[in-house]
């Protein structure tokens, strides 16, 4: 799955996240408006209370002054105190009113007029107190009180208008909030459904792919089995007939058929390893015997080359592995060593170290470059680009070697230097319960 495909598969998250952000923003905005309106309503109540407080204080002052004028001398001093207290209350109410912040121009104008009227009345009450000009001040006071009440009513009306407007807006906002909630739930459900469908589709597709892959693997295994049979049968016949022919041509046929069989076997082994279809019989095997057989088999490969084929190992030497497959591994490594070594020697060593049996296949051949070592174990690769043209081969051998060794729970490594030779090391788990000799030399 490419990054692009992965990103495309997550596209449904974009509208979901966008919706969540939008919802959060909407909640924030509507919440803020809601709080503002609620506080406005609370402030409106305070405004009305302040106006009422001023009205009450003014009325008290008015009553106190009137009462003072109709009092006899003995009660007038007491009335004076009451009047002064009423003036004090009026001034305090005036200060409270002045602290208010009006909602609009109407309320501000009404508030200013009310303050002016209250201030005038405050002065008039004090005038009546200090000059006792009852007749003149009474009419002035009555007029001021009426004016004050008019402005108070006007201001209360302005405030109430703001309040009822806030009230209506609050109700509207609540309705909008409910509508928003419903819309949010519907869209969220739609996106969730879409996401579920998308997920189900993806699961369905991957299940289909798994079935197809399993079918393909089964078909491939069947194909290799058939091909193995179909290829080997005519080759066996060719070889059989070639053996009975004694001339040179017949030997050539037999040799090439042998090569062809080797190639086919390699291809089949590689395919089996890749498909995990290779069956191994892991048991305690005598490595010395394996090496003996391999050396014997590969002796003919040396041919006319000035090349010594040597073995050097302890006996007995037991490892845990598949006898036949280990032969295949060592033969492959030795054949390679002989193929890429023109002169000198090919040495096969083996030893047990702790719980590991190590088998070394060393040569004094052309060696492998560091760059080539990186791709050495990959199938259809040879060390150098021109190696296959000069030495032949499919490039499958070492990948099969590695596959087989790893299936035997072992490890294969290589050390090499161009022009000085190579050393392939196979490490296998030692067989339990066997006491092997450390080293034996033979040639």
């Amino acid at each position, binding site marked *: 799955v490419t990054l692009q495909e992965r990103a495309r598969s997550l596209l449904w998250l974009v509208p979901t996240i966008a919706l969540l952000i939008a919802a959060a923003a909407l909640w924030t905005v509507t919440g803020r408006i809601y709080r503002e309106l609620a506080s406005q309503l609370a402030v409106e109540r305070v405004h009305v209370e302040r106006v009422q407080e001023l009205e009450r204080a003014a009325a008290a002052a008015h009553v106190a002054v009137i009462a003072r004028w109709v009092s006899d001398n003995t009660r007038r001093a007491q009335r*004076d105190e009451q009047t002064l207290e009423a003036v004090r209350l009026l001034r305090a109410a*005036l200060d409270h009113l002045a602290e208010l*912040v009006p909602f609009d121009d109407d309320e501000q104008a009404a*508030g200013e007029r009310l*303050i002016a009227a209250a*201030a005038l009345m405050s*002065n008039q009450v004090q005038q009546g107190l*200090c*000059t006792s000009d009852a007749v003149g001040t009474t009419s002035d006071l009555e007029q001021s009180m009426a004016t004050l009440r008019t402005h108070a009513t006007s201001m209360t009306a302005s405030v109430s208008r703001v309040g009822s407007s806030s009230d209506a807006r609050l109700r509207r906002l609540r309705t909008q909030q409910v509508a928003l909630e419903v819309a949010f739930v519907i869209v969220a459900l739609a996106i969730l459904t879409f996401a579920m469908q998308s997920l189900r589709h993806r699961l369905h597709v991957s299940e289909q792919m798994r079935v197809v892959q399993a079918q393909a693997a089964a078909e491939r295994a069947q194909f290799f089995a058939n091909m193995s049979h179909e290829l080997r049968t005519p080759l066996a016949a060719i070889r059989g007939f070639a053996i009975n022919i004694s001339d040179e041509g017949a030997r050539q046929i037999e040799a090439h058929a042998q090569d062809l069989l080797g190639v086919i076997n390699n291809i089949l082994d590689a395919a089996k390893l890749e498909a995990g279809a290779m069956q191994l019989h892991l048991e305690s095997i005598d490595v010395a015997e394996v090496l003996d057989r391999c050396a014997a088999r590969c002796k003919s490969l040396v041919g006319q080359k000035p090349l010594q084929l040597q073995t050097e190992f302890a006996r007995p030497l037991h490892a845990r592995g598949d006898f036949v497959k280990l032969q295949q591994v060592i033969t492959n490594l030795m054949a390679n060593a002989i193929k890429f070594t023109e002169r000198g020697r090919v040495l096969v060593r083996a030893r047990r170290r702790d719980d590991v049996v190590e088998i070394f296949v060393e040569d004094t051949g052309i060696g492998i470059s560091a760059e080539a070592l990186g791709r050495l174990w990959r199938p259809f690769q040879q060390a150098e680009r021109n190696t296959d043209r000069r030495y032949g081969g499919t490039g499958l051998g070492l990948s099969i070697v590695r596959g087989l060794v790893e299936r035997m729970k072992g490890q294969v490594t290589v050390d090499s230097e161009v022009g000085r030779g190579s050393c392939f090391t196979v490490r296998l788990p030692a067989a339990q319960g066997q006491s092997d000799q450390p080293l034996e030399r033979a040639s």
Partner: protein
Amino acid sequence: VTRSFAFVLAALALVGCGDGKRRISLAQSVTTLTVDGSGALYPLLLEAANQFMRQTPHTVVLVTASREATAVKEVLAGDLSLAATNLPVTDPRLEARDVCEVALALVANRGPFNERVASLSRAQLRAVVEGRIDNWSALGGDDQPIIFIDRRASGERVALTEWLGLTDFALPNAEQGGAATVQSDLTTRLGALSFVALAYRHPALRVLALDGIEPSVETVRRATYPLRIRERIVFRKDAAVNTRAFVDFLRSPAVQEDLLDQLGYNTTDGGSARP
């Protein structure tokens, strides 16, 4: 999703912008001037303030006479807009304007006990404030104890003390009175005697002459009445425009030519506006 974003952006823009108008409190939209100080100027200031408010919208002038002793200091501190006083002002940060001249009258509770007492001499008044005379009979009236209503911490008291040639006086039996209630006290307290500006005169009270000279606009204008006080209005040199506007109003013809005479004050150019 696009519509939701558009709605959110629009809502945010609306909320963010608001109505663009900064709302201010009523205290900020209405200029309030507070005036306090000398009780002698109190009746004039109340009436002048009312007239000024009627012709000057958005300005409120609140007058009291409860802080006579501290008014000037409070103006200096910025707690009061204006202070009325008859005492000299020396602080260079303050400015003072003469408003009027007024007779400081001896006013008494009217009763049969003082019907025959029309005038007091300086010596008699001194004897009263020093407690040596405590009965109207010693002044030519009937037997009735004198209740001296003192007005401590007032500028008028300072003027009276100076005129009597005293540094101070302290009557143990004196009652304290304020500018707002002194008239009422004099009306209701039998045998009461006090000193107030002529503006406080009332038919229910008896106004006494000093050394045989009646206190009146005329005697003040002629400077024959001996106990006169000059009232000033004091404000900070850096006072606001409205404060200066009210001071200018106090010195305008509307006050100087009409109101002073009507209330019993004199202009400060040596006579009343309407002799």
